[in-house]
C-alpha cells in the first residue's frame, strides 16, 4: 500500500444474486489527486463508489483513510463527503433549516462557508428545497459539500440532468473554491469531456474490471490519435496495430497505444486523443493497462 493512499482496494468483488458485477478490482488512490472513473451504464462505477463510501458490503479488502468503510461508515463520513444525486437533499426543509441541521450533525461542516458559497446565487435562506429548481438544488448541494472540511470528495454523476451552463459553473466552482487544499476528488460522469481539464488520473471500468488506470500525463504520452486522408497511408497505419479505427467525414481516425509519434507523423495528423475518444476505443478491446498509475 502506498504511504499516502487515501483509498486502497484489493480483490474487490461484488455480486447481486448470481451475477458478479465487480470482478476483483485492485487499485490505490493517492492523496491530493483528481480521479475520473469512467464506464458504461452497468459497468460497476456506482457499485465501486458505494463500496468506497461504505454503502454496500463487498468481498475483498477496501480501506478508505485507513478505515473499513462498510463497518465504520458513520465515522468515515466526518472526513468524506459525497454527492450521489443532486436531487437527494431532504425536500421538506428550508435552506436555513438544512444548514442548521447539518451544523448540528456534522462536526466538520461550516454554516458560514455554506452561506458564503451561496452568495451570488438566487437561493434564499428561507426557501424550501422542494421549491428550488434542479440547478439551484445542485448549487445548494455543492455549497453543502464544499462547506464540509473533508479529505475525500466523491461525486457520482453530480450534474446529471443539469443544463450545460450549470454543469460548467458546478465544476468551475468545485475547482476554484474547493480544491485549494490537499483534497482528493473522485468523480464519475458520462459527460467526461467536461471534466477532462481537471483530471489528474483516469480509470476506465468495463464489466466490473478496470481496463485503464493511469495518470493523465501518461495517457498523453502513451496514446496517440492519427487522422489519415490517403487510403494507402491508412493501410500502412493499420500495420502499426491501432487499438481503434473509425471513419469520420471521409477521413480515417486511428488510435494507437505505445506507438512512436515520429513514426505516425509521417502518415498523417497526430494528436492526443481526448478522454471520450479513448474511452470509445478502449471499451472495444480486452484490456489497456490494468496496472496502477
Amino acid at each position, binding site marked *: 500500500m502506498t504511504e499516502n493512499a487515501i483509498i486502497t482496494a484489493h480483490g474487490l468483488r461484488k455480486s447481486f444474486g448470481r451475477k458478479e458485477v465487480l470482478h476483483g478490482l485492485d487499485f490505490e488512490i493517492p492523496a491530493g489527486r483528481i480521479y475520473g472513473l469512467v464506464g458504461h451504464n452497468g459497468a460497476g462505477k456506482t457499485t465501486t463508489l*458505494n463500496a468506497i463510501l461504505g454503502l454496500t458490503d463487498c468481498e475483498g479488502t477496501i480501506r478508505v483513510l485507513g478505515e473499513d468503510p462498510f463497518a465504520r*461508515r458513520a465515522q468515515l463520513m466526518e472526513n468524506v463527503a459525497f*454527492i450521489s444525486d443532486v436531487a437527494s437533499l431532504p425536500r*421538506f426543509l428550508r435552506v436555513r433549516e438544512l444548514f442548521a441541521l447539518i451544523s*448540528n*450533525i456534522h462536526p466538520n461542516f461550516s454554516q458560514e462557508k455554506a452561506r458564503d458559497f451561496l452568495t451570488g446565487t438566487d437561493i434564499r435562506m428561507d426557501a424550501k428545497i422542494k421549491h428550488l429548481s434542479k440547478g439551484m438544488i445542485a448549487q445548494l448541494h455543492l455549497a453543502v459539500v464544499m462547506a464540509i472540511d473533508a479529505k475525500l470528495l466523491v461525486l457520482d454523476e453530480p450534474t446529471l440532468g443539469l443544463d450545460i451552463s450549470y454543469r460548467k459553473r458546478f465544476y468551475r466552482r468545485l475547482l476554484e473554491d474547493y480544491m485549494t487544499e490537499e483534497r482528493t476528488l473522485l468523480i464519475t460522469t458520462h459527460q467526461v469531456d467536461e471534466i477532462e481539464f481537471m483530471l489528474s488520473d483516469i480509470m476506465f471500468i468495463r464489466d466490473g474490471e478496470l481496463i485503464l488506470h493511469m495518470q493523465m500525463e501518461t495517457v498523453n504520452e502513451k496514446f496517440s490519435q492519427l487522422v489519415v486522408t490517403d487510403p494507402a497511408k491508412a493501410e500502412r497505419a493499420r500495420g502499426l496495430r491501432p487499438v481503434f479505427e473509425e471513419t469520420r467525414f471521409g477521413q480515417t481516425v486511428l488510435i494507437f497505444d505505445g506507438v512512436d509519434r515520429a513514426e505516425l507523423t509521417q502518415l498523417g495528423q497526430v494528436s492526443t486523443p481526448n478522454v471520450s475518444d479513448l474511452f470509445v476505443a478502449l471499451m472495444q478491446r480486452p484490456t489497456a493497462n490494468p496496472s496502477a498509475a
Partner: protein
Amino acid sequence: MKAFAALIHREFIEHKGAFFLAPMVIIALMFIVLGLAYVSGRLDIEDYGIINALPLRIFEIGFLALSFGWWLYLLGGVVFYAADSFWADKRANAMLFWKSMPQSDFKILMSKLATATLLIPGLIFSAMLLSGVFVYVLVLVMASTTGSNVGFFISAAFWSYLNIAVSLLLVLAASMLWYLPFIAWVAGHAVAVGRWSIPLSILIPMVAVLIENVFFRGMGPDGGHIWNYLTHRLEFPQLEEGYGEEWFFSTQAFDASAFALDLIMRIDWLQVAIGAVFAFIVVYLASEYRRRTIDN
C-alpha cells in the same frame, strides 16, 4: 446528544403538520366556535340545569373526554408516523443524503423512535392541556350565566385541572411504554416495505395465530396462546375497572395521586420490560437492514 436532538428536530419539521399544526387548528376552531356561539347568543345554557349543580364534575368529564379523544388520535397518529418515518428517508432519493452524514443508521432510527414516544406525545399533551383550558372557559361561561358559585368553580377547577394534567402526563408515558413494542414492530417493517408495514404488522401475527390454531388446536386457551397474549398486550391496563371508573361513579374531585397509584399497580411492568427489549432488538435489526440497503 446535540446530533440526536437535531435529528429529532428534523422529524418535527417533517411531521409537524399532523402533530402540531392540525391539533392547533382543531383547538383554535373549538375556541372560535365557542366565541361565535357566545357572541351570537346561540349558547343555550339555560336548558342545561346540571351545570348549575355540578360545574366541577362537568369540567372534569369534559376535559377527560376531550383528552381521551386526543389519546386515540395519538395512538393512531404514532402508528402512522412509525410506518411513514422509518421509510421516509428513501423518499426522493434522500437516503443518499442521510448516508453522507456522519450518523449511524441505528442513531437515526432511534431518533425516530424517540420522536414517536417522546416528542409526539409531548405535542399531544399540549393539545390536551389547551383542550382543558377550552372546557374550563366553556364551563366558566355556562356557570356564570346560570348563576352557579363561580368563585368556587374557578379555584376548584384549577386544582382539578392540575390533577388531571399530571394524570394525563402519566397516561401518556405509560401508554408509550406499554405500546412501545407495537410501535417498533410497525416501524421495523416500514424500513423494508414503507407504509405497507401497517397491514403487514397485523397480517404476520394473524398468520401465527392461524397456524397455532390449525396445528395445536385445543392445547391452549380459546383462540390460542398468541391470540390471548396479543389481546392482553393491546389492552391498556387503565381502561377498565380502574380508578377512572371508580371516580366516575363517586362525587370526589379527580385525584392525581390516587390515579397514579392505581395506574402503576395495574401495569404489568415485566411485560413493559420485555416490550422495551423487543423494541430495541427490532430497531437494531431494522438499522442493520437499512445499513445494508441503499436501493430506493
